[in-house]
C-alpha cells in the first residue's frame, strides 16, 4: 500500500512538475495567441540608441526606431492596422495628409516615416517635387545606394530614400527602420 501511495504521489508530482517547470531556457511563454512570440522578438530594439541618428524625420520628434508619442500627431489622422502573413503581428499605420508613420509589428516603435506631399520636408530641406540635383546638393554626391529611379543616403543604419519620376522629380521620400536588412 505504501508503494502505491508513493508511486501515485510521484506521478502527481511529475505531472505538475513537467507541466509547470519546463520553461527554463525557453523563449518567453507562448500564449494561445501566437502573435506574442513575434511581439517579443520585435520589441528588443533599443529606443535610446537612435537619438543621434542623422537622417530622421524631424516633425514633433517622430524619430525612426523610437517609441511614438501619439499625442504629437496632428488632430486629423487615420489609424490603420495592417496584419502580417498568417496573423503573426499587426503593424499600425498613422496617416495624415502630409505624412505616414508606420510602427513595427505589435510595437509602438516607429519603423518607417513616409512623406506624402510638399507641405513637409526633410530636416535638410528636401521635399516632394524637388529634383535629384536638389537632393545631391544637400546630401552630397556619394549616396549609399542609387538606381535610375531612386537614391538612398545612410549614416550608420539610418537611411533616407528618395524616389523619382521620369522627369527627375521626387515623388516619394521615406525613412527606413534601422533594423531593416
Amino acid at each position, binding site marked *: 500500500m505504501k508503494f502505491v501511495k508513493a508511486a501515485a504521489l510521484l506521478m502527481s508530482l511529475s505531472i505538475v512538475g513537467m507541466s509547470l517547470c519546463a520553461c527554463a531556457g525557453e523563449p518567453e511563454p507562448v500564449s494561445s495567441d501566437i*502573435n506574442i512570440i513575434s511581439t517579443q522578438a520585435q520589441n528588443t530594439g533599443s529606443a535610446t540608441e537612435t537619438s543621434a541618428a542623422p537622417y530622421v524625420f524631424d516633425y514633433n520628434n517622430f524619430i525612426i526606431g523610437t517609441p511614438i508619442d501619439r499625442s504629437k500627431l496632428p488632430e486629423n489622422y487615420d489609424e490603420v492596422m495592417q496584419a502580417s502573413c498568417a496573423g*503573426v503581428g499587426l503593424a499600425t499605420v498613422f496617416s495624415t495628409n502630409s505624412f505616414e508613420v508606420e510602427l513595427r509589428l505589435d510595437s509602438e516603435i516607429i519603423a518607417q516615416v513616409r512623406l506624402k506631399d510638399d507641405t513637409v520636408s526633410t530636416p535638410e530641406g528636401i521635399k516632394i517635387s524637388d529634383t535629384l540635383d536638389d537632393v545631391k546638393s544637400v546630401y552630397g554626391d556619394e549616396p549609399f545606394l542609387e538606381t535610375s529611379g531612386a537614391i538612398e543616403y545612410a549614416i550608420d543604419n539610418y537611411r533616407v530614400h528618395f524616389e523619382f519620376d521620369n522627369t527627375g522629380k521626387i515623388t516619394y521620400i521615406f525613412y527606413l527602420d534601422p533594423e531593416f536588412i
Partner: protein
Amino acid sequence: MTESAKKESKTIKKVIIALVLLALTFGILGFIQKLLMPKYQRGVIEGSFTEEYYKEKVPHDVIILGDCDAYESYSPVKMYEEYGISSYIRGSGEQYVCQSYYLLKDVLRTETPKVVVLSVHNLQHDAPRNEAYNRMTLDGMRWSKDKVDAINVSMTEGETFVSYVFPILRYHDRWNELTRTDFEHVFSKNITSHNGYYMRCDVKPMTTFPPMPLRPDYSFGDNAMYYLDQIRLLCEENGIELLLVRAPVEYKWYKEWDENVQNYADQYGLTYINFNDYADEMGLDMSTDTYDAGIHLNIYGAEKLSVFFGQYLVENYDLTDYRTVPEVAAEYEKDIQFYNDMRDDQLYEIATYGELKNYGLNAVEN
C-alpha cells in the same frame, strides 16, 4: 506458497502498478499537451494546414509548396472542376525554403506527384527567422526523420528541439487562456483549408504600395539557394517536373529577384512563371480580386489564376483527368461541396455584416 514465491509475486505486482501509473502519467500528460496546443480552428487557421494534408484520400498529380503566395493564390478545387487536376498546396505562413524541401520529402513518403510547383516568394528569406511561423509549419508535421531534420534546420535562437517533441514545454502557460475551441478539438480538428487553399471572399481594393527600399545586394541567401538546389535534385531523382512560380502580386518583390529566379531556371532548364506578367491575360482586376489591398488574392483572384494556371498545366504536363476516376471524383465532390458551402457562408456574412465575422482575423477563438 513459499516465501520467495510470495516475494516474487509482490515484486511483479509492484512492477505492474508502476507500469500502470507510468502509462497513466503519460496519458494524462498527453491529454494536457493536446489540450494546451493551439488549435488554429478559427482566426489564424494557417497553423492547421500542414497536418490537414494527412487526411487526404486521393492521389495528387500536382503539389504546390510555399508561403502565403502559394496557399492564397491557387484553388485546387477550381483546377479540379475545370480540368480534373488533382492538386494539393502544402503551404504555410512564411514557409521557408528549407521547410518546403522537407515537406516535399514528407510528401514523397506516401505519393509521387508528376509536378512540383514551388512558389519562389519564400526565397527572400535566407533562413527561418520567426518561431511563430516555424510552429505553424512544423507542429502539424507527421513524425519522421524529415520532421526531425526540418526542426533542426528551422529552430531560431532560443528554440529547443525537445519543445517540438513535447510541445507542452512550449504551450504550458496557455492553461489560463483555454477556450471552448480548445476543448472541442482536443482529439479531432475540422478541416479549414481546401486542399491547402485559404479561402477569403471579402474584397479590399488595391491602392498603391510604397516604393521598396534599395538593397546593396539582391542575391538570394546561400542557405535559401542550397535548399532550392535540394528541391530541384529531389525532383530529378524522383522523375518529377519542377515548376517555379510567382503569384500575380507585386507587393514586396524586386525585379532583381525575378531575374535571379529566371537565371536559375535557365541554368537548370526549368520553367519560371511570374504570373504578374499574365495578369491582364487572366483578367485579374486588383480592385476586386484581393481582400487586403493587393497583398493577397481573394477567391475571385485565386479562381482566375487557377483557371489560367490549370490550362497551362494540362497543356504542358501529362496529367490525369481525375473527373473520370470515380473513387477520386467522389472525394472531390465532397471537397467541392465544402468549398461552395464555405464560399456561400462567407458571402452571407459579407452581405449581412459588411465584413467577415467567422473567418480571418475577425474570428476570435472562443
